[in-house]
């Protein structure tokens, strides 16, 4: 079986066009390695990539853990995880961070009772899945149903939208992702908050952290299972060595400082899959 082109999907929501630009170097490497034309697609949301992988119109993507779980639950044989990004400190995890405006007087989840709480994308691990499971464990009586503990629970659509909505006061508190390294006032070393700070969008003096999740495993780089074995092998090797070959490219592709990728298997995500299954069904 031959392939005529190789299609990479980029998770939406984070200025996909920029990301497509950042992926240009990867496109060149891939074309060279596989000898076929390589294209990058950036659907408008996470679900777009998931549908692409399921429908066989995308060959590779870097998913979030929950998005991987969603794909797996819809078709266990659609994709296989191959690699995971390694952070600067060697870890392969990050955190979901709950935050609010300082002047709202909210300092912890206790103050959020009756207030408006915002998730990001329903397929996001840190923006929905993990907090929706862990926040109710914070104390008895918290549920994620609108109108029970929180006055209202909304989906803003993505990490950026959550940050802006909290900053604007549209919602009283929300969750987003951060690596949990570095300082709060910088918006941590990497993550959505850091990007917002860098963009001059928010002033961390005006925000407070109200909650932080356990460590969440980074999402896997997945390949479509139906791909020929040699293609899978070549791509795995290419991604594995990207940091060594071209650190700048690796920065762009993995959206920040990193130490490249390491192999990963489905076992790493079993708990997430179970969590998603319990939470959403499937």
């Amino acid at each position, binding site marked *: 079986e031959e392939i005529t082109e190789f299609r990479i999907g980029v998770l939406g929501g984070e200025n996909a066009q920029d990301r497509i630009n950042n992926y240009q170097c990867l496109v060149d490497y891939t074309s060279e390695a596989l000898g076929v034309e390589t294209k990058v697609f950036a659907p408008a949301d996470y679900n777009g990539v998931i549908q*692409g992988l399921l429908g066989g119109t995308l060959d590779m993507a870097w998913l979030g853990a929950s998005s991987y779980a969603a794909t797996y639950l819809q078709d266990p044989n659609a994709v296989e995880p191959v690699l995971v990004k390694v952070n600067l400190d060697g870890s392969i995890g990050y955190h979901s961070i709950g935050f609010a405006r300082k002047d709202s007087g909210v300092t912890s989840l206790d103050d959020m009772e009756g207030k408006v709480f915002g998730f990001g994308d329903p397929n996001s691990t840190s923006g929905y899945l993990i907090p929706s499971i862990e926040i109710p464990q914070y104390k008895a009586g918290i549920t994620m149903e609108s109108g029970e503990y929180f006055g209202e629970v909304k989906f803003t659509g993505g990490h950026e939208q959550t940050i802006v909505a909290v900053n604007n006061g549209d919602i009283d508190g929300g969750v987003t992702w951060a690596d949990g390294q570095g300082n709060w006032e910088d918006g941590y070393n990497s993550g959505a908050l850091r990007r917002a700070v860098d963009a001059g969008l928010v002033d961390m003096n005006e925000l407070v952290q109200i909650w932080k999740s356990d460590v969440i495993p980074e999402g896997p780089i997945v390949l479509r299972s139906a791909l020929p074995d040699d293609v899978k092998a070549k791509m795995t090797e290419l991604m594995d060595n990207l940091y060594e070959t071209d650190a700048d490219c690796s920065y762009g592709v993995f959206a920040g400082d990193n130490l490249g990728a390491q192999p990963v298997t489905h076992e790493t995500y079993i708990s997430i899959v179970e969590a998603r299954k319990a939470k959403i069904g499937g």
Partner: protein
Amino acid sequence: MTTADLTLTKQEADTLFRRKRLMAFGIPGVVTLYLAYIFFAFDLPGLAQRANLDNAITLASDSWSHKVHVTRDNRSGDITYAVEGERKGTYPDGQRPAWVSGDEVITIALGGEHVVRYLPDNRTEIEIPGLPLIDVQAEGRKLTSNLPQDLPDWISASSRRISITTPEGRITLTGARTEVFNYFPGWELFWFTLDSPYHGQSLGTILFGDRIDPARGNIPGAVSDWWNNAMWRHKDVVWAIGETILMAFLGTMGAALIALPLAFLAAKRFSPIMLLRAATRRLFDFVRGVDALIWTVVLARAFGPGPLTGALAILITDTGTFGKIFSEALENVDQKQIEGVSSTGAKPLQRYRFGVIPQVVPVLLAQILYFLESNTRSATIIGAITGGGIGLMLTQAIQTQKDWEEVAYYIMLIIAMVMFMDWVSGWLRGKMIGRKD
């Protein structure tokens, strides 16, 4: 008329006017009530409170200006200069903006007597007219400064972070880094990024001057650098607009081609079989009712993201719409012409060709061209869902809220694109309908 009759007529007129008044007050009354209900249902009072005027101002001012970041990494001491703080806008090594000077002490003149100095050992001095010299020392995560207790609201300070916003620029300090943003009007790097040899060259020099880059001719070089501009991504933008128009064009024309024969099946005049007619009509109603939004979602699974999916979504919905419009037009054709052609012994297809088509073509063309323009707008939105075209670029740029000048640029392009398509469709309409057969 007798007096009694007249009185009666007067009474009738009074009643008439009472009824008319009731109507005149009733309709606006119902509308007002409805709007009042909406006022609360949409929570307008709350909205007025939440509305963020600052955002509007940021939006407005940022859309015609850009900022240059001067960043000191407090751990390494490295200083970077970057337009919009982006990697691709970073000044190459050894270059920096003209308003920065000094080696040991980096002096940043923001203009209007506002000066920031990066001193060695992570110290920073800020001079702002009307305030005493501000002195900040960064150590680990902590900041020590000589700022007084009560601060104007344009300065926000804590022991970990200080942020100063003035009309001349913005300064933020944290333990890890110190950053100055200097604002300038205009869209910087619109033509060439800093790494292009053509950056800062005048048009005259590029067109007529000596070869700037020895490896390439000036004009092809400049065009290629502009086309590949990483900041403004003209290539992607042009492709995106092309994709959007393509979606509209393919969708509209494809729908028209499919709908025309089906419309004959749905028109009472041309389709004697009632069942077939009803089935075709229900089909039209169904594909129209499902709506482009849902079609986009359904098709995205089968065809993946991209312009084809969007085009097909438009095609399917408009097949329904066109089918309905076309079959109505077919039912209204003038029988005389058909009869005239039939009376010569013309075959059925010839009857359609000469008796029907010349009559309906103007109506159909006008509709198709009208939809071409309106579908350009739909394609912008559908692109934002299915992942293609200028619509996606716009939504992404707005949602990440980084560069409002990019947003402004896309908006201008979209409006220009729609108006262009409006003009094209009007022009074609004039050309084709003004022409015979």
